[in-house]
């Protein structure tokens, strides 16, 4: 196994996934340019948060004027799935140098996790593993920055009459379908959606979190029962 191939292998492994990532980034940029937080702060989320779903929810909620605490809580609930990835990667990353253990989690995404954990089942060399993850993750990072920037530039030119804000729920529809693979996950989605609708009148925009947490609880319960 040649080490310098690790980075290139990571880049190659993640390239097909860019077909899904780039349009999402473009739409996020268009929506950010359209929102009340403005293009500069909208783009800053790509650097500071670097997570599409969390960025989209953050921009949407800030645009609606939701309470800051609710915006933060919602984005962190969305981001909490990364703890699962962190747990799965921990035994591999524990072989990396200290700087890598601190720096690489910044670029940990759904896609970088997915391609790396599959490759890690086939290889043992820690240096290769590190370069593979770095190649995959940095390719995604660069593509995301370019896509969101392009979206922001294009978005400023588009007319309001296109109802482009409807692209926000559409992105979440696609992500929803991609994350439902089992019956307990289906139950989590149905309960999460239904309770979010029922709880919508709750103050401070808390309905979303109430719905999400109910869905998670229902998913865990369904997992116990259906197993």
């Amino acid at each position, binding site marked *: 196994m040649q080490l310098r191939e690790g980075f290139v292998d990571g880049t190659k492994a993640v390239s097909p996934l860019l077909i899904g990532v780039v349009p999402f980034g473009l739409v996020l940029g268009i929506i950010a340019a359209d929102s009340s937080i403005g293009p500069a702060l909208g783009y800053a989320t790509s650097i500071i948060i670097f997570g599409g779903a969390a960025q989209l929810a953050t921009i949407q909620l800030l645009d609606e004027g939701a309470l800051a605490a609710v915006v933060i809580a919602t984005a962190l*609930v969305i981001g*909490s799935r990364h703890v699962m990835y962190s747990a799965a990667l921990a035994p591999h990353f524990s072989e990396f140098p200290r700087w890598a253990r601190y720096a690489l*989690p910044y670029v940990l995404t759904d896609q970088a996790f997915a391609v790396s954990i599959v490759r890690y089942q086939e290889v043992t060399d820690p240096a290769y593993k590190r370069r593979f993850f770095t190649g995959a993750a940095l390719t995604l990072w660069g593509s995301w920055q370019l896509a969101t920037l392009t979206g922001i530039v294009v978005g400023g030119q588009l007319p309001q009459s296109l109802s482009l804000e*409807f692209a926000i729920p559409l992105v979440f529809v696609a992500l929803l379908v991609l994350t439902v693979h089992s019956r307990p*996950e289906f139950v989590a989605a149905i309960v999460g959606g239904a309770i979010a609708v029922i709880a919508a009148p709750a103050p401070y925009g808390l309905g979303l979190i109430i719905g999400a947490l109910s869905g*998670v609880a*229902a*998913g865990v319960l369904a997992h116990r029962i259906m197993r």
Partner: protein
Amino acid sequence: MSAAVAILIIGIGTYLLRFSLIGFVGERAVPEWALLPLRYVPPAVFAALVAPAVLLQQGDLVLAPGANPRALATVIALAVAWRTRSVAATIVTGMGALWLLQAVL
């Protein structure tokens, strides 16, 4: 609190979530029960984001396609997402369906 501060806090929090077990646990295995709820975060959150956004109008549940073309466009987008598993195809057909329904209804 300004939007910029909220975004900064979310950024730091997101990093810590990603760093969490890589940084603090290392080689020790985390019990499965502790991670199980996290598996259900994505479907639950995404559904909770979609449903109120497309089913409610000024806080009222509106299901009639004539009054709420977004709900019908979302159903079409759901079907396309299911078949294609593509984010781009979902956005394109969903937006197309909404424009068509807005023009027709």
